[in-house]
């Protein structure tokens, strides 16, 4: 098991990878990626039992589904740093003939990806299907999914929420990246999400909150608590507060960096704040 400081060191490198991937192709989504770095690192380096040799069926493994596929830079970095594919491949992000498509895809057979995402609202349904498949197969491993908060504006999410509770899909732990931002501005201005805890509880989920999803210790505690609560007849939801753009001072807390890549000068300013811990690709 890695120590907290080791996990924090991985987070710093992952953030460098995010900045360098998006800078390298002058496109992509750094804001949400930076905000979900601790979550991804916690899952892949601590929480999940998973196999970097990668089988699509994932039998006997914990599975992860990224529903808000635009934060692909953080997922690609964590997959590469976990050994799913060479870290050098991060340099191909969003470029022609790459396996690292703008949004995650299975089409180019990138190890670690089990379904395409990008068009929002679909990942929870797929995660439920994978969780049902595990139950049919007598596989006691868990299924995790991550969703953006703006994504909750998609109706399919609530179809999935209703289904999972009604059918006691209790091997599913979903998380919402509550950064309060979406492309056009703060979610409270674009389309208010209301009382999310009350909503998910009303839909029949076991809800827990993580006050700071960028604090790796808090996040690990929340994920471990969620694992404890699984298997009790309810799907589990973690409402995880994060800061969009976390770790780079001029990107933090604003929707401006949702889908904008840093220029040369901004890249240098960002990297100066993020120690290179594992070696850049």
């Amino acid at each position, binding site marked *: 098991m890695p120590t907290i400081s080791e996990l924090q060191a991985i987070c710093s490198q992952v953030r460098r990878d995010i900045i360098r991937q998006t800078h390298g192709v002058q496109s992509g989504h750094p804001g949400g990626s930076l905000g979900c770095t601790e979550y991804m690192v916690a899952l892949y380096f601590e929480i999940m039992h998973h196999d970097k040799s990668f089988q699509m069926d994932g039998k006997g493994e914990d599975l992860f589904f990224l529903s808000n596929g635009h934060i692909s830079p953080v997922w690609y970095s964590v997959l590469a740093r976990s050994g799913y594919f060479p870290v050098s491949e991060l340099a191909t992000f969003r470029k022609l003939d790459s396996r690292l498509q703008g949004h995650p895809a299975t089409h180019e057979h990138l190890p670690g990806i089990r379904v395409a995402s990008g068009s929002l609202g*679909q990942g929870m349904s797929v995660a439920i299907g994978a969780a049902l498949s595990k139950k049919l197969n007598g596989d006691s491993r868990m299924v995790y999914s991550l969703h953006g908060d703006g994504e909750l504006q998609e109706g399919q999410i609530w*179809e999935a929420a209703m289904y999972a509770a009604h059918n006691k899909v209790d091997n599913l732990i979903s998380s919402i990246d509550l950064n309060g931002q979406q492309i056009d501005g703060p979610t409270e201005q674009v389309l208010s999400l209301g009382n999310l805890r009350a909503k998910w509880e009303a839909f029949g989920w076991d809800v827990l909150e993580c006050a700071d999803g960028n604090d790796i210790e808090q996040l690990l505690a929340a994920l471990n608590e969620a694992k404890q609560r699984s298997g009790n007849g309810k799907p589990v939801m973690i409402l995880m507060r994060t800061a969009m753009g976390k770790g780079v001072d001029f990107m933090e807390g604003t929707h401006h960096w949702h889908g904008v890549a840093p220029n040369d000068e901004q890249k240098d300013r960002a990297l100066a704040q993020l120690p290179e811990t594992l070696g850049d690709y």
Partner: protein
Amino acid sequence: MIQVDYSNKKDTRSGFGAGMAELGRTNPDVVALCADLIGSLKLEKFIEENPERFFQTGIAEANMMGIAAGLTIGGKIPFACTFANFATGRVYDQIRQSIAYSGKNVKIAASHAGLTLGEDGATHQILEDIGLMQMLPGFTVINPCDYNQTKAATIAAAAHDGPVYLRFGRPKWPVFTPENQEFTIGKAWHIQSGTDVSIFATGHMVLKAIEAAAQLQDKGVSAEVINIHTIKPLDIQAVIESVQKTRCAVIAEEHQRLGGLGSAIAQVTAEGCPVPLEFVAVQDSFGESGTSDALLEKYGLGASHVTAAALKVLSRK
């Protein structure tokens, strides 16, 4: 010439239900999902015999398509079942991203396709689904013509590795294909040979093509009738070989003229053997309430319309 027994009618959706019942007994990986239409899709027997392999999703088709995609991870072969309208247009993006682009082994079982669902009217009479589904890369599109063929196609779809759109209908329809037939995806079925005109038909319109061929025979015209049950991948060789012989063709389908089987055959003949074509299909309009037969007549999809199209295309040779 095939003899149609009009006293032996069964709905194609019951053929699907029979196929699912058989798959329930023979293939433990087959699972079914349905969005509140168990009775309409004839799933009762499968559910009765395999309750743990059935997932009732409620009236939430988008979620159903996503769950189906997820179930393939772990090796299941899901059949996502609802009316054709709700199985395609309503959930096109879910199918496109989570199933087609993701290469998932999902079978979409779509009943009540076309005008012949009848009295429910245009909200439910999808006439665009073949076009929608054949445009998706990697999707197989099948539209069987009667009960026996639908049962066989259902079993073949489960054995096929890849996403399949299986389209069938509501009304009781004459059964004229063999029981327990061998069904090969992508292989057209020659119903009768002829020399003057080819008639390519799919779904319920195969019956109308057979009836038209009899009418044409009375007029001294030798029609070749070919059942294109698999619209994609199209049996290009069968199409080209037929029109090389007859030098003209009619395409009959219960679908919009634009984007369906007619469009597919026009493309392959344009490239492989350009000949005059006529299209028996819905002419860029919505349907309406009515009986199956009355609707087919009003919208130009009766046997007499197929015959008229054949005579017209013969005059263009």
